Structures are given as structure tokens and as C-alpha cells.
């Protein structure tokens, strides 16, 4: 099926925060820890869970998903959705699970450091 009349580059009115590089993969992997989902489900879950705070462009999400599959971190299979439509479901592989652990540790450390700096109350000479 094709998409006639699509014009590129549309944006929502209220601009949510841009994602920090490299975090999208971790978000997707995290989404899949509760079981297999299709791409639309992943997008919705991220948006809802972050309270619409994280803007994930759908195109970027799908590209990331397919790349994760290429790297063997997720695998896909066709199944049927809630309203009985054919949909492509993704699920974590063992390697994907391990990668998520590594990535979420890294991001936690990163965020932790970031907050420490931002929340510092006093200047101390190094």
C-alpha cells in the first residue's frame, strides 16, 4: 500500500523536548521488556509513559527498530493486532536484553552526573 499525498516534514504545534542522541534505542528496548509489541504500540507507549514529554518522530522510531533488528537485538514476526489487522511484532532477544542493561546503566550514570552539575548549589574551587 502506498501513501499518496504525503508531504514531508510536518510538526506538531507544541514542540516537546528533543531526544538526546542514543537514548531512543534504550527506550525501545525498555518498551519491549514487557513482551512483544508492534511499532505503533511502542510509539504510543513511549509517548504516554513520558507524559508526552519525549518527542519521538515515528520515522526515527521505525528506523531505530529496523536497525536494532539488523543488529540482532530485537526480532520480528507477523501477527494480528487487537482489531485483527496484520501487524509486525517486535520482541527482545537475549542480546537485546543484555544491551538494555548496559545502556540503561550508562544513561543513568550520565543523567546522574548531569543532575549533579545542574543542581550544584555552591562553587568550590577544584
Amino acid at each position, binding site marked *: *500500500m*502506498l*501513501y499518496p499525498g*504525503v*508531504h*514531508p*516534514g*510536518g*510538526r*506538531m504545534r507544541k514542540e516537546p523536548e528533543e531526544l538526546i542522541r542514543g537514548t531512543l534505542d534504550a527506550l525501545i528496548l525498555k518498551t519491549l521488556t514487557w*513482551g*512483544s*509489541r*508492534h*511499532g*505503533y504500540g511502542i*510509539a504510543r507507549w513511549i509517548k504516554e509513559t513520558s507524559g508526552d514529554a519525549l518527542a519521538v*518522530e*515515528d*520515522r*526515527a522510531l*521505525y*528506523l531505530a527498530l*529496523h*536497525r536494532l*533488528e*539488523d543488529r540482532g537485538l530485537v526480532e520480528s*514476526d*507477523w*501477527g*494480528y*493486532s487487537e*482489531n485483527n*489487522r*496484520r*501487524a*509486525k*511484532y517486535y520482541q527482545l532477544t537475549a542480546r537485546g536484553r543484555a544491551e538494555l542493561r548496559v545502556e540503561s546503566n550508562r544513561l543513568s550514570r550520565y543523567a546522574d552526573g548531569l543532575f549533579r552539575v545542574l543542581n550544584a548549589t555552591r562553587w568550590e574551587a577544584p
Partner: protein
Amino acid sequence: MTRSESRFPGLRRVVRLPGRSIQADVDEELAFHIESRVHELVRQGTSASGARRIAEAEFGDVRASRRELAAVDRHRRRRERIAHVIESIAQDGRYAVRALLRTPAFTVAAAGTLIVGLAATISIFAVVNGILLRPLPFEDPDRLVGIWHDLPRFGMNHVPQAPQLYFTYQSEARAIAGMGMFRERATNVDDPNGSAAPSRLSTGFFTATMFSVLGVHPALGRWFTDDEDRPSGRPVVVISYGMWRAQFGSDPSIIGRPLDVDGIRREIVGVMPPSFRFPSAQTDLWIPLAMNRVSPPPSAYGYYSVARLKPGVSVVDAQRDLAVVLPRVAERYATFVPGITMRMMLDQLRPKPVLTSFRDDITGGIAGTIWMLAAAGLLLLCVACVNVANLVLVRCDARQREFAVREALGASRFRQMRQIASESVMLAAVSGALALGTAWLAIRTFVAHGPEEIPRLPEVSVDAATLWFALAVTSFATIVCTLLPALRLGRARMSTSPSSSTRGGTADRAQHRVRGVLVGTQIAFSLVMLAGSGLLLRSFERLHSVRLGFDAEHVATVWIALPRANYDRDSDVVRFMANALNGIGHLAGVSSVGVTSRLPLVARGVNQNPVYPEGASTYDTKLPPLQILTSVGGDYFRTMRIPLIAGRLFDGMEHQRDGDAIISRRTALMFWGDSTGAAAVGKRFRTLPTDPWYTVTGVVGDTRDTTLAAAPSPTVYFPEAVPRNSAAVAPSRVMAIVARTIGEPASTVADMRRIIRELDPRLPTFGAESMSDVMRASTARLAFVMLVLAVAAAVSLVLGAIGLYGVMAYAVTLRRREIGIRLALGAAPPRIVLATTRQGLALASIGVAVGLALFGAATRLMRALVFEVSAWDPATLGAAIAILLMAAALASWLPARRAANVNPAETLRAD
């Protein structure tokens, strides 16, 4: 969420469903996303058209996304497919190894057989390739020809070059781009700056043109110039790469250093590359021939020459051109050799130029032998392949039930064939690799220890061509091992169900016939090799029982060469020899000692020339037959135990007189028609019509002098003495001192060398150390070929016997029921044994008959090596056939005996 659609997860990754492309998958996935979003927006109250616009805007560039995602997926698909192929190959390999390990007896037998066959074929290919096929290491070698002459009036073919003819051709022939002339002999070489003892080295005497004709370039320095190739040219020398490395430690500043060659100080001007081994692998030095072009030395046809044809000129054209030019030699040179004018030579000898491909000149002598070995190797490979095919068939029969069960369980026929193929490939690949290693070892050993006379031997190696060949024969073996069982499987499907046993349907019988044919073929090949090695063995035995005419046991030999630079006058030479003989004669272990310019069965020092008996007018117009002219001194005849049959021997060394001569029995018979020699004593002859007369003082027995296989040559012996005038036979300067020893000759040789060193410390000694060594060397090639062929024959005999055993054992299995019934009905076991054995022998007899026909075709290859044995020698053939039939009888008796020992009740119950 939902269940997966496919029953076998991951299957989709392997098998792409028909009609579904990657792009379609991507499109469907994206469509699902947009639809879902639209659905949600509509539910929230957005209009249908607005919802779609919003959903697509949220998504981003859908068109670009389609492309990106499809690219990522294609990349993944490709990688997965490669990984899958590798994985399934690895899996097949693992299965194959497991299956092969389950039947170790089969695996070892099949692999061993293949390794023997493949290793033999690969090594022989390396030899054929290195010696016969690979282009000569010269520039454009196909245009190089050797120049020879046929002397029809004289019954001689392929004689080398006369200098006068060479110079005539060089300036007159138009078909030739360049010509060179050379000869090779040993020289005494001494490094004045080195501490090493002087050595006797093989030296090429080359015209300066040789190198441009061959198109070779020195690795270091330069080749000698035309000016240096003149009688009074600067004394220079070019050395071999091997000598540069061994004797001068690869010294880069070697150019300009002095080297004494035969007492003349020469300047080293060049080092040749390691690939240049010409005229022989032993050549270590090249010095200018420096021949006088106006009056060349009177050495008749004593030089070799090589020419490069002009582009586009055929050998036949060039030969015609030379024949036209040849008579002009008489206008340039009046005399051929002293006493014979050029006109006389042309009229009497009628020389005819003959051009041969340079490759044949170098390898022609050995080509027949090598092709024979190649044929033996190929036969062995055939036998091995047939045997392995047979083994594989037996194994297939044993696994018929396994295959049938698998098929019933749903394994596809393709899957089963793939398994058989992977087993065969694994078997052949491992055998091929091991065979290559074995061949590599065999070739190294052969190059290091093979007969030295083989030309281009150091060029034999495992090169790229050999590796390709190894790959090709291994693939061939793989195909043989795969095809047969695959065909078998194809047929088994029709005839075998899991419940049927080997009761013997028609397909089984047909298969059995195929195997019978295979075994018959094997026996035929075995017979060819057995009979061939039998013939060589007989030849070898005949050669060693020929009457030598001398006694080779307990004779020590030491060769010396007295250079003209240090021993200018003939009297110096004679005095040195007399002193050496005197010293050696007084050694404790020596009973008699003599000296000779040539030894029987040694190529060195052969000097063939005509002699003219007195009063024989027939020789006024035609040349008399050639004699081997030999200078001897001391107690040569007594030391060699060559019998005196008439007259007397020469006096002791100091009293030998020029003018006396001893002739061999053949010479006496030839000139004076008397084999007792009595009539010849006192008769006179001369070496040239202008020379002084020699008087026959004695007649001695004939000796086998050139090869064991050739009849004795007529020989004339002159005393090693100072000649009466300059034209007479001068004393020889290259001499072998021979001593009859009481103990082993080896221990005496050291003492003989010491005495020579005491007389002249700068004089090298060389050559074989005893006449027994000479004898061994003279049959080395035959012994080598015989050994190779005997091993091949033994291996093929064993393989043939095993093959026959396999077939007979299977035949007995097929007939178990029948035999059981017969036994139950009261047939005597011996009768059954006899009947079964007879069946095996019948099969073997057919093989023998076919083998005899093959052998008839193969004898042509052996003609050069066989001596005094007819190719159809009944004793040899009879023995070969007897050995084969005995092996066949044994191979069929063993299973027959087992058949007769079966318990009839058990056999019948088993079905």
C-alpha cells in the same frame, strides 16, 4: 497481544515466502501504523480526512522512510542468508564427521586408499610439471633450438657441433637470430683469498653470445663481453648463485675478486641468478670459450650449440637454411682435423644439420621414464578411486535400512543425498589435504636424493600448478565417491522398503554386477603394474649378471686433473702420475695400482675416434669405425682384473714407451678378424693418416664401458707416456687412479688422497670412491623407477585384493539364504567353499585378461628401461598372473569359508 503467525518461529527468516518482497513488508508495517493513528484520532473526534493528514504529518517523511527501512532490512536479510549457509555447511560437516567416526574401519580404509592414490598422483604431477611442462627458465624458450648433425655415412645420429660449422652457420645462416656454442667440463678451482681446499667444479665454457641467445641476465655484475671471448681476451669468470652463497657467503662486493681456474687467475665479473642451471644443475662457473675463429681447435664434433630462431621461422625452414649454408664451410676452412681436409669430411661424412627443440635436448632423455611413472601414478589413482567407490557402495548397502527409515520419517531425498555428499566431501577434503602434505614430503625427498642425472630436478616443487592439480584430482575423487552412492540411493528407493532385507532383489544384483566390474578393473590395473615392475626387476637382475669384463669389487678410485698452468710439459704429467702410483702402491692395504683416463661405466673422459689399421685400403676412402681411446699406466689391467688374452701388457709406469698400444678383443676382431688376439699382436695402426704408427703389443678382454646395457665398445689403450712427437696422443691430464684393496676401498681412499695432497696441496681430488659406487650409480635410474613401480604395484595388489574380498563377502551375504538351504539339504561345506572361490577366481580372470590387453599398450612406455627381457616375457607375466590369482583366491576363500560355516537353521530364521 497475539500469537505468532507462523508455526515454526524463524522459518520466515530462512525461506522467503513467494510473492512477498521486503518492500511489501515495510509498506504494510507503515500502513498499519498510519491506520492505527487515524483510528485513534477519529475516536478522539477528529474528522477522517483531518486525522489522516495529522497522522502522516506526525510520522515524518513516509516516502524516505520506506526506502530507508527497506535498505536496512535488505542488508539484514543478506547477512542472515550467508550466516545460514555457513551454519548449514558447518552442520553438514559435523554430521559427516560424526557419521564417519561411527564407522572407523571404513573411514580409515577409504581415507588411506585415497591418500595413497592422491599423494602418488600429485607428486608425479609435480615432477612432470617441473621437468617436462614448465617452460625452460629462458626468454621465449620455444624459439630455442639445439643444433646437431646426422652423419648418415657413418651411421651416427645427433652428433654435436664442429667449431668450423658453427662459425660458418653464425655468419651465413639467415633463419637464425643468434647462436652460441659451449661445452662443459670440470676445472680445478682455488680461491686465492680463501682458506678452503681447492675444489673440482663443473665449468661451462661459453661463447659470449650464449647469454643473449638464452636471454638470461646475471643477478650481480655482468656477463662476459665479445672482447673477453677471444683467445687473448681478459681472463674473467662468472659464478653461480649457489657458489656465491656457499663459498663467498653472498658477499655483495664479490665483483672484481680473483679466482684461480685451472691455475689461471681470473676476475669474477658476474653472479648468475639461482634459476640459471645450465648446462647442468652442477655447473658452478662460466668462463669464455675464447675460441680462435680463424683456426678453431681440431676437435671435430666436440661442442654443443644452441640457436634462437628468428620470429616466424619454423624449425624445418631453419634446418633447410643450415643445410644450404653448410657446404660453404669448405671455402672458409681448409682442414677439418689434421690430416683430413674439410672437403674429405663433407664428402665422406655427408653431415646433415638437425635442429631439435631445446626442451627435448634438455629433458628428452628422461621424458619416457617420467611419462611411465606418470602412467603408473594415474593407474594407482584409478585403482584407489575404484576401491573407494567400492567401499562407499558397501557402506551404502549397509545403510540402506537407515536411509529407508529416514525417508519414511520424512527426510527428503535431497537431504539424504546432501548428507552422503557432505560425508564424501569431508572424506576427500581431509584425504586431499593429507595427500598434499605427503606429496610435499615425497617431492622434497626426491629432489634431495633423486638420481642426479635427472635434468631440471631442482626445479621440481609444489607450485601453484601443482596445488591446482591437487584440487582437481581431489574434486575428481570427491565426485567418484559421491556419484556412485547417489545413484545407488536413487535406485534403492525403488527396490527397498524398511522391511525388506538384503534378500537380493534385481537392483541388488545389478549393483553387485557394477561392483564386479569395478573389481575386475582394479585387478586389470594391478596386473599392468605387477607385470611392469616384474619386467624391471628382471632387467635389473639381467644387468647385474652381465659379464662386466672387469672385477668391480675392492677397487678404490680417486680422480685428479693436472692443469696445464702448473703442469706445462707432458713429462711433468707423467712424472706426477709415476710418483702418485709409487706412493699409493706402497700403502699397506693396496695390492696393485694403476691409472686410466677413463673408467668403465663413467661418462667422464670418453674419447671416441677412428684409428687406421696398416694396410687396410678400405679406409682410404671411408672413415674407419670409432674406438674409445684410453690412456693407461701402472698396473691398470691387473688392478681392474681385465684379462690379457694375447701378447704382453705395458711395462711399469717409468718405462712405458710411446708407440706401444693395447687393443680390446673387439678391436682385434674388427681389424684382424681374430678373437683370440694372437693375429693382432705386432700389427700396426695409427690415429690419423698423418700420424706415426702404433704397434699392438697386447690384446685384452672387452669391458662393459658405457652402460651395463650396451655392448662393449672397441677400445684402444695407449700408455700414459711422453709422446714421440707433438701430433701423437698426448698423456691425459684428467686421470683416475685405481687401486685394488685388500679391505674395504673406502678406508684406502683417504690414504690415496693424502698422498696426492703431499705431492701437490693445491690439487683437488674428485669422483666416486669405488667401482662398486660406480656400478650402483650406473643403475640408479633403473633402480629408482623399479622401486617406485614396485611400491605402486604392491599397493594396487593389496587394494585389488581388498576390493575383491569386499565383493565376495557381499556376494556371500546375498546368497546366505541359498547357502543355508543348500547346507540344510545336505550339501558338503567344502563344495560350497569351492564354488564360491571359483566365482571369485572367475572375476579375477576377467580382470587379468583385460589387464593383459592394457599391458600390451603400456609396454611401449617401458621399452627404454627394459634390458634383455622381452615385454611378453612368459616367466614374468606368469608370475604376475600367479600372484594376482593367488591373492584373488585368498580374498574369495575367506568369505567362502565363513559362508560354509553358517548355521542353516539360523540363516533361515533370520529372514
